[in-house]
C-alpha cells in the first residue's frame, strides 16, 4: 500500500516536472461558453495569429468554474475566464478571481457600459432579451414596454421562462435599477397574474407555446428566436422592441476576464484583444446570432433583419450587483 502511494506520488511529480520543463507557451481557458462556440475561435486564432501557442480549455457552468478557480487559488492553470451573463462575471470579480487589464485596444473597442468599471472584465457579445408575440393574435400596436406586460389586458396570454434562469434574473435586476424595488415588485407580480400556464424551462418552449396557441406573448433572448426561425421559417412569430421611448431594450453580455493568478497574462490579453477585433467579433456574434460588442462591427444579415433598436445603456455591471435582490423579489411574488 505504502509503496503504491509513493509510486503514485512519484509518477505525478514526474509528470509535473515533465510539463514544466516544456517551454511551449500554453494558454488555459475556463469557459462557460460551450466548445462548439469557442473552438472555432481558438482554431482561427492559432492559425492566423499565433501558430506557436497551445490553447487548453475546459467548459462548464460558470458557477462550477468559479468554485474550481477559487479552490485552486494560486495553483490554478487558468489564464482566461469566459462566461455568459454579466451576473457570473460580476461574481468572479466580487470573489477576487480576476485581475484588471490595461489595454488601449480593449478600451477603444468595447463601449463603457459593456465592461467593468475597473477593467476586470470586458463584454464580447451582446444579447437582447425582448418581447416575442404571435402575429396571428396580437396587434403590435398593443405592445409597449416590459412593464405593460403586467397590464390586465394580457391576462391569461403571457408565457414566461423560469425565474431560475439567470437571463430573467438580470432582466428583473435591470427593472429594479431603473424603476426601484417597489414598482418592480408590482410589475413582476402582474406578470405572474397574467401567466397562461406554469413557467417553462426554456425560451424555445415559450415560443412553442405561443405557436401552439397556449399564450400570445412572451419574453425571450433574440438568438433563440433566430434559431427557431431558421428551423421553421414560416412560424407566425415576431419580435417587438419594448421601451423604445424611454430607456430601451434590456441587454446582457457574454464576456471574459484574466484570472488573478494567470501564469500567461500576456497571451491571455493578446487573445482577448483579438476577440474584440472585427474578424473575431463577427464570428462570435454570427455563430450564435448575437450582436457584436464592438460597435464598429455590423451584425449578421438575418440578425439585422429583426430591426434596429435602442438598447438600455445602463451599465450591465448593475444587473450583476442586483441579481440577488431580483431573485428574492421573484420568490416573494411567486415567480419560480
Amino acid at each position: 500500500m505504502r509503496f503504491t502511494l509513493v509510486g503514485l506520488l512519484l509518477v505525478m511529480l514526474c509528470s509535473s516536472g515533465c510539463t514544466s520543463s516544456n517551454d511551449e507557451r500554453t494558454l488555459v481557458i475556463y469557459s462557460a461558453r460551450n466548445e462548439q462556440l469557442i473552438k472555432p475561435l481558438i482554431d482561427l486564432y492559432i492559425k492566423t495569429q499565433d501558430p506557436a501557442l497551445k490553447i487548453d480549455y475546459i467548459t462548464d457552468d460558470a458557477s462550477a468554474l468559479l468554485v474550481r478557480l477559487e479552490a485552486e487559488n494560486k495553483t490554478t492553470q487558468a489564464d482566461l475566464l469566459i462566461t455568459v451573463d454579466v451576473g457570473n462575471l460580476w461574481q468572479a470579480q466580487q470573489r477576487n478571481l480576476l485581475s484588471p487589464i490595461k489595454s488601449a485596444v480593449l478600451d477603444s473597442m468595447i463601449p463603457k457600459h459593456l465592461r467593468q468599471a475597473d477593467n476586470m472584465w470586458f463584454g464580447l457579445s451582446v444579447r437582447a432579451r425582448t418581447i416575442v408575440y404571435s402575429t396571428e393574435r396580437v396587434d403590435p400596436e398593443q405592445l409597449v414596454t416590459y412593464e405593460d406586460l403586467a397590464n390586465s389586458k394580457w391576462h391569461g396570454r403571457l408565457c414566461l421562462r423560469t425565474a431560475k434562469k439567470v437571463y430573467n434574473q438580470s432582466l428583473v435586476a435591470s427593472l429594479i435599477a431603473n424603476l426601484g424595488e417597489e414598482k418592480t415588485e408590482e410589475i413582476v407580480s402582474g406578470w405572474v397574474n397574467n401567466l397562461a400556464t406554469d413557467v417553462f424551462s426554456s425560451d424555445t418552449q415559450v415560443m412553442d407555446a405561443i405557436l401552439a396557441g397556449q399564450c400570445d406573448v412572451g419574453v425571450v433572448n433574440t438568438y433563440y428566436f433566430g434559431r427557431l426561425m431558421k428551423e421553421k421559417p414560416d412560424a407566425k412569430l415576431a419580435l417587438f422592441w419594448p421601451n423604445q421611448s424611454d430607456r430601451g431594450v434590456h441587454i446582457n453580455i457574454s464576456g471574459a476576464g484574466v484570472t488573478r493568478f494567470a501564469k500567461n497574462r500576456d497571451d491571455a490579453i493578446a487573445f482577448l484583444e483579438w476577440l474584440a477585433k472585427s474578424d473575431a467579433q463577427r464570428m462570435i456574434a454570427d455563430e450564435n446570432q448575437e450582436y457584436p460588442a464592438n460597435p464598429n462591427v455590423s451584425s449578421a444579415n438575418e440578425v439585422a433583419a429583426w430591426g434596429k433598436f435602442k438598447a438600455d445603456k445602463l451599465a450591465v455591471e448593475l444587473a450583476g450587483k442586483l441579481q440577488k435582490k431580483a431573485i428574492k423579489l421573484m420568490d416573494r411574488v411567486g415567480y419560480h
Partner: protein
Amino acid sequence: MGLRFGGVFTLLFLFLLPIVTVFLSWHHINYENWQHLIETQLFTLSMNTIKLMIGVGFGVCFLGVSTAWVVSIYEFKGRSLFEWMLILPLAIPAYVLAFIYVGLFDYSGEVPIFLRENLGTGFALPEIRSSGGVIMTFSFAFYPYVYLLARSAFARQGRDMLDSARCLGFSALGGFFKVALPLARPAIVAGIMLALMETLADFGAVSIFNYDTFTTAIYKTWRGFFDINTAAQLATLLLGFLFLLLILERFMRGKAQFHQQVVERQPQRYILNRWQTILVVSCFMVLLILAFFIPVAQLFYWVFLGSKKYVSDHLVSFFFNSVALSFIAAIIVLIISVVFVQLDRTKKRWLSAAIRVACLGYALPGSVLAVGIVMVLAGLNHQLIEPIQRIFGLSQQQLLLGSVFGLLFAYVMRFLAIGFSTLDASVSSIKPILADVAKTLGVNSAQIWRRVYFPQLLPGFLTAILLVFIEVMKEMPATLLLRPFGWDTLSIKIYELTSEGQWQEAALPALLLISVGLLGVILIVRQMRFR
C-alpha cells in the same frame, strides 16, 4: 495485517472526506438567505420532494417487482427476451427521458396537437409538467434497479419455497406476498433506495419539468445567490432525511435474516396459458414502448432530421473517453465494494455506519458532491503535493484537480453505493453456514472469499460492474468540473448542446451513449446467459 488495515482505513477516510466537507458547511450560517428560503419556498419544495419520493418509491417498486416476479416464476413465449429487454431503460438518462416526454406531451407537443386536431379542443391529456408527470418519468427511468436486484433474488429463491407454501394452502398470490416478497426484501429495498437516491440527486430532469424540489433549491441558492454554504447545508438536510429512511428500514427489518438455499440449475417455472401470455406480453410491451422505444425513436428521428452541422470529428474520441473512464471506474468501484462488504461483515457498528455514510455520495446532487471533491482535492494538493514540489524545487502546480486520478476518485465516490448495495444484497443471501463449514475445514478467510463467496457472487459482480459502467457514462456534473483538458466525454457533449437547447444535435451523442449501455447489457447477458 496492520498495514492492510491501515490501507483500508485510509481508503475509508478518503471516501468520508468529501461528505464531511459538505457537512462542515454548517460552520457558518447565512441567516438572511435561510430566512428567505423559509419564508418563500422551503415548505412547498419539501412537500414536492416528499411527494416525489413516495410516488417514485411506489412506482419503481410496482414496476420492478412485478416484472421481476413474472419473468422469474412464469414461463411464457418471449420470456427470455423480456428478461433482458426490461433492463434497457436503464441506458437512457433521466433528463433525456424528461425532455422527450415534455416535448411530446406538453400542450405544444406533437401528441396533444394531434389529439386537438382530431378529437376537438375539449380533449386534453393530463398536464405532463406536474407531480404525476415527474413521477412517471423517474419510475420509468429507475425501475430497472429494482427489477435487476429483485430478479436475481427471486431467481435464487427457486420454486421449492413456493411449492411448500402452496402445499400449506396459500394461493399463488398468497405465496408471493407471504413468502417470496419477504425473502427478497433486502434486494428490493436496496433497489428502491438506489432509485430514491438518484431521484433526490437529480437536477436535470426536474428542471426540464420546472418542478421545484430540494435539489432545485440547492442549485438556485448556489447559482443565484452564489452561496455555496447554504446550498451545502440544504444538501445535508437531504442526506439526513435519507439516513433516517435507511435507519427506519433497518429497524423494521429487525433481526430477520435472509439467507437462501442455493438453487438448482434449471428452475422449474409455472407455465402461463395463452390468454395470460397475451396479457403479460402486452403489459411489458407498453412499458418498454414508453420507457425505451419512444425515446430512442425520437432520438433517431432527430439524428436523421438534424442538421449535420455538428457531427463532430471528435465523436470517436469522446466515445473512447467515455468507455475507458466508465470501465476503469466500474472496476475500481467493484474492488472497493468487495473490501467494504468484507469490512461490513466484521460486525463493528461504527465501521458499518462509516461505510453507509461514504455511500451517501450517491444521493447528493452531483454538483454538490463534485464541489466537495474539489475542496478535498485542492486541500490535499496544498497539504501533500505542494510541500514535495517545494522540496524538489518544482513549480507549484495543481496535480490532483483536473487529473484522471481526481476524476476517477469522484466517480468511485459517487457510485460506490451502487457497487456496495448490489454486492451487499448478493452476499446477504449466502448462508453463513457455508463459510462456517469452510472454516472448520481449515480454510482461511481469503480463501473463503475466493472459493465460497466468489463463485456465488459472480452474477452480483457483473450486475455491479454493468450498473456502475452505465452510471458513469451518464454522469455529468463531476465530469464537467473535474475532467483533465481534452478528456471530453459523450455526456459532456450532451450537456454542452442541451444547455443551449440544441437537442437535435445532442441526439447523436445521446444515441451513442445509449448504445454503449446496451452493449454492456448484451455482453452481460451473453456471458451469464442471464441466469
